[in-house]
């Protein structure tokens, strides 16, 4: 019975989670290349990390990208959207929240296309159409400020998760507290600051941790919109792994790079045991027939 019900799950997760994690560790100790030739090289790949001329740039990119997207959009704008849409009649608030959810459900290549059009360097893109109304010359935003573009591209998707989670958190703040504060003469901002924010501290922490990890490991939208360029200017760590390993075929070195992300991901994943209400989740079943 146990084998029938849990067997397929265990088999697939071991094969595609546990095995690849082990393979990553072993690959990292080889110099497997595009021709799939490689030998054991010990820790050479990890020593190579310190000599990689591109890596400092990539690490700086990663910090800038994660920090700004996380603070301005995934947490900041997510919180603002949640606060604003719960402050107006719920029917209208739902419409705005639905709009912000749309990019997350859009196939990512289509979403990438929307941005490629928006920032198109010729006069046909939205940005340059709008600039022409003010008599401004077309601008190639991807070359001019690639950073702004990839933060915006990821931010407009990233804000929705925080928005959804924080909205439900704000809605669960007891009405009495808000009314009591209002009777005492508190302004809307004071209510947000002193009543709502302290009560949603925990979901806010969750969003912060969850989205840091998500941003640290995702790169598909950067790949679609700038390809990590110009040169390596918008290549973040996770994209660097992809470019070195999958695009250039440096599987050994790429695995060493990936191994660090795997470790970071594993540590973060384990910290979820504390973040989520684990005790409640494992409450024992009531029928113990077996």
């Amino acid at each position, binding site marked *: 019975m146990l084998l029938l019900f849990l067997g397929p799950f265990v088999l697939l997760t071991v094969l595609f989670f546990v095995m690849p994690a082990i393979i990553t560790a072993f690959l990292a100790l080889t110099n497997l290349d595009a021709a799939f030739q490689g030998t054991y090289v010990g820790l050479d790949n990890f020593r190579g990390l310190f000599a990689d001329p591109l890596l400092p740039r990539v690490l700086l990119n990663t910090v800038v990208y994660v920090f700004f997207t996380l603070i301005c959009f995934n947490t900041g704008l997510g919180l603002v959207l949640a606060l604003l849409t719960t402050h107006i009649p719920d029917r209208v608030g739902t419409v705005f929240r639905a709009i912000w959810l749309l990019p997350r459900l859009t196939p990512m290549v289509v979403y990438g*296309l*929307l941005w490629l059009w928006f920032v198109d360097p010729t006069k046909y893109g939205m940005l340059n159409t709008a600039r022409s109304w003010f008599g401004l010359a077309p601008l190639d935003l991807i070359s001019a400020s690639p950073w702004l573009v990839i933060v915006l591209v990821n931010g407009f998707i990233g804000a929705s998760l925080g928005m959804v989670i924080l909205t439900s958190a704000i809605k669960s703040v007891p009405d009495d507290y808000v009314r009591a504060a209002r009777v005492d003469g508190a302004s809307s901002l004071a209510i947000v600051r002193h009543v709502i924010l302290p009560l949603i501290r925990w979901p806010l922490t969750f969003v912060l941790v*969850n989205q840091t990890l998500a941003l640290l490991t995702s790169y598909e939208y950067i790949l679609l919109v700038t390809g990590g360029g110009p040169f390596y200017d918008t290549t973040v760590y996770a994209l660097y792994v992809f470019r070195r390993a999958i695009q250039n075929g440096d599987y050994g070195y790429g695995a060493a790079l990936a191994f660090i992300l795997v470790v970071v991901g594993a540590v973060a994943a384990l910290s979820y045991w504390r973040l989520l209400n684990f005790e409640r989740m494992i409450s024992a079943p009531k029928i113990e027939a077996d």
Partner: protein
Amino acid sequence: MTERMEQVTIPAGQLRRWRTPQEVAALAQRARRREVLTQTMIYALLTLISLPIVVPYLWLVAAAFSERVSYGIIPSGFTLNNWRFLWVANLGFVSGTAGRLPNIWQVVANSLVLAVGTAAIVVVVSTLAGYFISRHGFSRRAGFLKGALALQAFPGITLLVALFILLRSLNLLNSMLGVILVIAALHLPFALFVMKGFFDGIPWDIEMSALIDGASRLRAWYTVLLPQARNGIAAVAMFSFLWGWTDYIYVLTFVLRRSSWTMALYLNSVIGEYRFADYGLMAAVGVFYMIPSLLFFLFTQRQLLQITLGGTKA
């Protein structure tokens, strides 16, 4: 606070006066007016920051059906020519001799195989495991749940390099089966917790009464519990269908043969070839590709917006 209050001088005679009804009404009106002003400002702000999302989608639809789009979103000259990729076989590339776009219906078929295959595996495996973990006690149950929870939080995308090597050694590169297995497996922990949640929500009494009536656990599962969990099964089926349908990175990495392309790779290639030449065609392919996601969005946005902590993943 108290010190400052003492300094306020209140004119004699007004000290104990109650506010008149007129004054109260004026105060209430002022509060209402301020509330209306606040609401208006919120609407204005929300509209303004939502424009960068709304405008591109309006453009996408406008551009797909028209010859020209002016001012960003105003279409002019209705045409279906942008949809010619649906009936012109082997639409050619503008530049180079790199080859031709594969037949769109072949691509749609590949995408459907990927999406349906992923949904089938995820639904069957997570329904089995979700039920068992919800209703049965066994030694190591806590350990199993802990492991699954960690896997759910673990970013599977970091395993891409190793998965590539793994699929290559299993001879599954270029095959849809390899991509299906990878996408399904990496989303299984999430689906497991969704299904566990739905089984947790079914009252124990229902299962108890089936057991008292003489049904075995297995029989109680498929005659009593499964029908009760159909909403969960439907939700997991739709989610996993879309994971397969919208995936980009895994097909990009594991599928190299043109004949195995999915919609993501097709649109990507159209963008690569037509980027500055034919936005109408790109938009039409984009709208076509978006149809399943859009339907899903229209029918489920209300439920999606009610997701709370515990069943979420970026």
